[in-house]
Each structure stands twice: as C-alpha cells, then as structure tokens.
C-alpha cells in the first residue's frame, strides 16, 4: 500500500494529476446540478406570482 501511494517516486506528479481531474469533473457536475436547482426555484417563483409573467 505504501508502494502504491509512492508511485515509484512519481507520487508528486501522478496524484495531483488525478486529484485535479477529480476536482474539475466533479466541479462541472456540481455546477450542472446547482444551475438546475436554481432555475427550478426561479420558475416556481415566476409561476406563483402572475405579475412577473409576460
């Protein structure tokens, strides 16, 4: 297990590459989920209050 994390001396390069990919991919997913939530809330408000409807 120690060997695995050591990556034959390349741990400083291999793990940041994987960590960065995880952060970017999860980040895009998170943004997609949040945007949908926010939009649904906005449309709910818009439909509840006919004044804002055009």
């Amino acid at each position: 297990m120690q060997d695995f994390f050591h990556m034959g001396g390349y741990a400083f390069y291999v793990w940041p590459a994987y960590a960065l990919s995880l952060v970017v991919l999860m980040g895009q997913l998170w943004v997609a989920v949040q945007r949908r939530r926010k939009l649904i809330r906005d449309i709910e408000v818009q439909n509840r209050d006919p004044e804002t409807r055009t």
Partner: protein
Amino acid sequence: MWIWFHKFGSPRYFYDLAGRLIPWLGGACAVLMAVGLYLGLFVAPSDYQQGESYRIIYIHVPSAWMSMFVYVVMASAGTVVLIWRVKLAEIIASVSAPLGASFTFLALATGSLWGKPMWGTWWVWDARLTSELILLFLYFGFMALEAAIEDKRTAARATAILSLVGVINIPIIHYSVYWWNTLHQGATVTKMDTPSIHLSMLIPLLLMAAAFQLYYATVLLMGARTELLSRERRTRWVAEVIRNS
C-alpha cells in the same frame, strides 16, 4: 421520418427522454471509471521506460481525446444551427463549450505534470502542445462571444461561425506529432496498424476513454435539460414539468 424528426425535436420529448437516459449514462460512467481506475492503477504493470509516471496516461489521453471530440460535436451542432436553426443544436453547442474547455484544460495540466518528470520541463512550445492550447483559447473565445451577445439566437449563430472556423485546428492537433517531429510522442493507439501498447495497459485506457465519453453525455444532457427549461420558461409544458417536480 419527418414525424420522427418533429417528435425528437420537440422540447418536451427531448426533456423527458434525456431525463430517463441520465441515470443510466451516469451509472455506466461510474462503473467503467471504477473498473478502469482499478485496472489502470493496481493491475497494469509499470512502464519499462517511464516507471509509474506513465499512469497519468489513463486521464491524460481520455481528456485529450474528449477535448477534440467535444469540439467536433460543437462544430457539428453549429452547422445544424446555421442551416436549420434548430434550437436544440444551439443548446448542445452552448452546453458543450465549458465541458470541452474543461477537458482541454485537463489534457494540458495532466500533460504538464507528466512532462516535468519525463521531459524535464512543464511546458514546451511543441506543435502538439501549442495546438492544444489554441483549442483551449477557441473554447474561451466561444464562451466570451456567447456571453457578449444578449440575444441567445444571434449568439448561437455567431458562435457557430466561430466554432466552424476553429475546426481547422482539430486535424492540426491530430497530425501535429507527424508534421512537426518535436517532443510530444506519436500516436500509440490510433495508428493504422496494431496499437503499440500492451493489452494490459490498453484495456484500462479504453475503459477510461469510454467513461469520459459517458461523463460528457451525462453532464451534457443535464445541462441541455436545464437550458431548455430556461429558454422555454414561459411555456405551458415547463409549467407542467415544474409543478410535477
């Protein structure tokens, strides 16, 4: 067939279909990525020249492939936008841009982290690296142009033209390693004869590539659904969807 086109192009139909596909695509992505990472990090042997550092390949190459694939999707959607003015194509192009930029960024960053121990430098103005950097700027240009134009339909046509002009960069990226023989290594998988990579390394690589494709499909459909709701927010079907959610 025209009826089918009409049905598929209808926002409501697309919204429901995408909603049903997302869990399956996302689930398949998670499974393939788990197996690919396991095989790539634990099972595959180390490289006889590069030792363990080569394991960056399992994210670097799929990211680089996706950076080009997403661009081709974007430019194809752009063509549809220019010829038929299909709203769904506008949405697909628009949602693809930040995803493509992310893959391009990852290809560059992971490549840099791989280049430092292997080439002794984080960056070099090699043809492959430079053309990939231009790809990143093309994505940024797309997003900036889109943000600068208020009307979404006008923005879609302007960005479609930009993406079509930029498509010239895709074959340049692909062939750069042959045209300019500099630091970046040549193709190992997409060569015409048999790939010069051992099966125990090739299988996890292809699994990761498939997982990246599925990731893109999942997040693209999620984004497209949201964008569709946003653009059609005044319609009855959206009111219905929101009421039932």
